[in-house]
């Protein structure tokens, strides 16, 4: 059994143990090598894909450097979001305050780039030195005539989840500020897809084929003007519930927009998302087109998926992701490949998330909250995992152990959503697990010797 820090024992659950209990949504113990990030990170990843907005990081240079074009969130038009703008606060600014600098930076940038809106991220320092970011944003907005939205993302004010919420609050200020004229009754907003590797283009196309108008993509390939009229859509489709549920709930309260929780990952979840949407509109023509689409797409991808499945059947997978919602879909998608999930965890899951995971997983599966490399490496070995799915910090751990890896985070290079995405996923899983490189690593050499 893997050694676990005493304080963390309650954040690890092995399915089968009764009663079910898991601690989560708590601060990481100081001194742990946590895989988690901060409030700023949460806000930045959510808002960053809005391509025609200015994203200004108010703080010392680091926060802007580390998040410069960090995520493959694609835009079909403007590329302004891929630049890195920082007030680059210096010692004197910390002493005297950075408000003047921020105002000047905003004015210079808005004059130079004519963005549709500006987001101003307050980092730790902005919070500590007491800069009135709200006031400066208001002032800049009045001076330049575009929305300038403060994002209260001081790193220490909670976890990444609080950053999602701060991002949603900024978005909420934009929504409802433009006319909804011309939006048809069968319309949706796509919330919580960030267009990594162009995924939202695929999803959008499905809806269009079904006869449903997509009003705003929030935030993948996002545009300010679309977001401003998002309240005109009949329905919100919420993927990535961890990041976008707050916005969906706020919109429901304010404009009565209903929402559905969906996932576009894996064949089952993708089909379910389309059917749920079709069902919502109670339109037989839409439903007919949806059935046609789903059948057509599944017929297209299944033969390829079946080929990959032959080789990966029965292999064991571990999952460690940021938000737990991704994990549900991954467990199901792996099941479609006849693979077993023996380890699943997240940085920021809630109790309900973990409860749902427990129902989904097989006996003995380890469920873990806010893990660290030492634990993860221990679990991977203990469970003799063949495939690890995670993000940038997890990849080298897997490789060092001689385990295949698939990035299901910012660094995915292939679209993994949608029906075609499932083929890409199966191919990636197959190619990493079947790579000849593992034959030369000591772990497999031992296996082969036995």
């Amino acid at each position, binding site marked *: 059994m893997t*050694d676990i*820090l005493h*304080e963390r024992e309650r954040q690890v659950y092995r399915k089968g143990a009764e009663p079910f209990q898991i601690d989560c949504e708590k*601060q*990481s*113990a*100081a*001194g*742990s*090598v*946590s*895989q*988690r*990030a*901060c*409030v*700023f*990170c949460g806000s930045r990843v959510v808002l960053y894909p809005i391509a025609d907005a200015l994203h200004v990081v108010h703080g*010392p*240079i*680091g*926060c802007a*450097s*580390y*998040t*410069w074009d960090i995520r493959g969130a694609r835009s079909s038009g403007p*590329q302004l979001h*891929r*630049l*890195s*703008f*920082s007030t*680059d*606060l210096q*010692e004197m600014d*910390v002493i005297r305050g950075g408000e*003047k*600098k921020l105002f*000047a*930076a905003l004015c*210079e940038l808005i004059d*130079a780039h004519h963005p549709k809106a500006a987001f101003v991220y307050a980092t*730790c320092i902005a*919070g*500590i030195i007491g800069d009135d970011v709200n006031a400066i944003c208001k002032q800049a907005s009045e001076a330049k005539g575009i929305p300038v939205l403060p994002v209260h993302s001081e*790193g*220490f004010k*909670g*976890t990444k989840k609080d950053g999602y919420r701060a991002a949603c609050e900024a978005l909420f200020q934009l929504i409802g500020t433009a006319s909804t004229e011309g939006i048809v009754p069968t319309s949706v907003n796509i919330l919580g897809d960030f267009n990594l590797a162009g995924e939202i283009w695929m999803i959008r196309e499905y809806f269009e084929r079904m006869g449903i108008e997509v009003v705003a993509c929030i935030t993948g390939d996002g545009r300010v003007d679309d977001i401003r009229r998002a309240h005109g859509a009949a329905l919100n489709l919420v993927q990535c519930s961890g990041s976008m549920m707050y916005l969906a709930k706020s919109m429901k309260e304010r404009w009565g927009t209903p929402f559905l929780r969906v996932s576009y990952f894996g064949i089952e979840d993708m089909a379910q998302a389309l059917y749920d949407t079709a069902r919502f509109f109670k339109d037989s023509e839409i439903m007919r087109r949806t059935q046609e689409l789903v059948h057509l797409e599944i017929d297209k991808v299944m033969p390829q998926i079946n080929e990959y499945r032959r080789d990966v059947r029965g292999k064991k997978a571990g999952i460690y992701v940021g938000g737990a919602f991704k994990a549900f879909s991954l467990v199901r998608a792996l099941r479609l490949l006849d693979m077993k999930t023996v380890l699943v965890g997240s940085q920021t899951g809630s109790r309900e998330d973990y409860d749902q995971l427990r129902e989904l997983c097989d006996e003995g599966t380890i469920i873990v909250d806010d893990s660290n*490399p*030492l634990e993860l490496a221990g679990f991977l070995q203990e469970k003799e995992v063949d495939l690890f799915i995670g993000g*940038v*910090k997890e*990849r*080298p*751990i897997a490789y*060092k*152990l*001689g385990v295949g890896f698939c990035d299901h985070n910012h660094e995915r290079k292939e679209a993994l959503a949608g029906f075609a995405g499932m083929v890409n996923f199966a191919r990636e899983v197959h190619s990493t697990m079947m790579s000849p490189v593992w034959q030369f*690593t000591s772990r497999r050499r031992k296996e082969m010797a036995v």
Partner: protein
Amino acid sequence: MLLRHTTAEVTERTALTINPAKTCQPIGAMYAALGVHGCLPHSHGSQGCCSYHRSTLTRHYKEPVMAATSSFTEGSSVFGGQANLLQAFETIFTVYNPDIVAVHTTCLSETIGDDISQIISKAKADGKIPEGKHAIHANTPSYVGSHITGFANMAKSLVTNFAEGTGEDKKQINLLPGWVEPPDMRELKCLAHRMGVDVIMFPDTSDVLDAPQTGKHELYPKGGATVAQIRSAGDSIGTIGLGHSASTRAASALEEKCEVANEMLELPIGLQATDRLIEAMRVMAGVKVPDIITDERGRLLDMIADMHQYIHGKRVALWGDPDQLVSLCDFLVCLDMKPVYILTGTPSTRFEKRVRAVLGDSVPDVKIRKGSGADMFLMHQWIKQESVDLLIGNTYGKYIARDENIPFVRHGFPILDRVGHAYFPTVGYRGGMYLLEKILNAFMDRQDREALEEKFELTM
């Protein structure tokens, strides 16, 4: 055009950095601390700092990077981070059991005013640092200097915490490598070894951030300078510090604390800078330069002679860290190339003077910029005014390379999209050959790709 927003006309910006050519202090301290064996870097601040630094280093090296964090909360930002750091020591020594915890601060803990020395003393008094284990720290406020400053501060902290002069004269010299890559550190040790010189090198990230695949995940890989080695640096014949911005502080501290005299040199990139290192080692250690090194030098020279017609007069734009840039310019001048635009986000008083001295009158229209306002946006503006033949710098140059169709050699930190830097040195004569090969390939691949049919050459 990804950088369609760049205008050729440069307007003075007063309050703004666009596409930075630097990052913040703490990541430099983390990198330096990783160059000590059995050391766990610790970030005293919000969780995100630590996560970003680890991710960036992981992207650069494709290696696991271990570091702990104080996980500041709103409470710590009001009441100070002492409770967090004390708790952190307990967690760290219980779970991760390093020999050393190297704490660096962040903008947050610096602004709050946490006194790390005092907290470490308290931790020791409270028995939170087990017998035989160490806790050290460096102050690395993100709003001062750059990542290089952070590296320099942690390197200095290693000296002030560990180096001791016992009075014994050890026949060894200290080699402070500066901020170079693990294969560079390996190459420096190899050069010293071939000359028969015993060196104490720290930080030393070789075998830490270029660890072999062994089927195991090593929390503390086998590389890194040991505490015993750093301690003995106080008894060495002398210190050779490489790279003024990264190594001066540690070298001076060693002189001050243990009276070990130092000689500061530029990073040994290229022919002449390597010559100076070899000469310094020869004199300081009183050894002869072996044929194997003389021959290696001859091979680099031979390669330059063979290929000089392809690089003569080429205009180069470079960005990165001051120590790297000064030496790169030196090498480029020796290759008869023209470094026309040179830029670093790191503030440095010495940088511009040295670059001008190195260039002499070879590039009359050179543009040099450092510190605040020196960013990749400005670099692109310069290039738009008058283009160059080659770009040398970190990964962030790829947007310019693509938009302007300019050959691009990756060098510096971070490199997020290639792997060579993590395995092949650019210091020493062999490093010079590797660098020259990369430069030549960049030009020749382009020529082969774009030459008109009638001008396409088989032999080059």
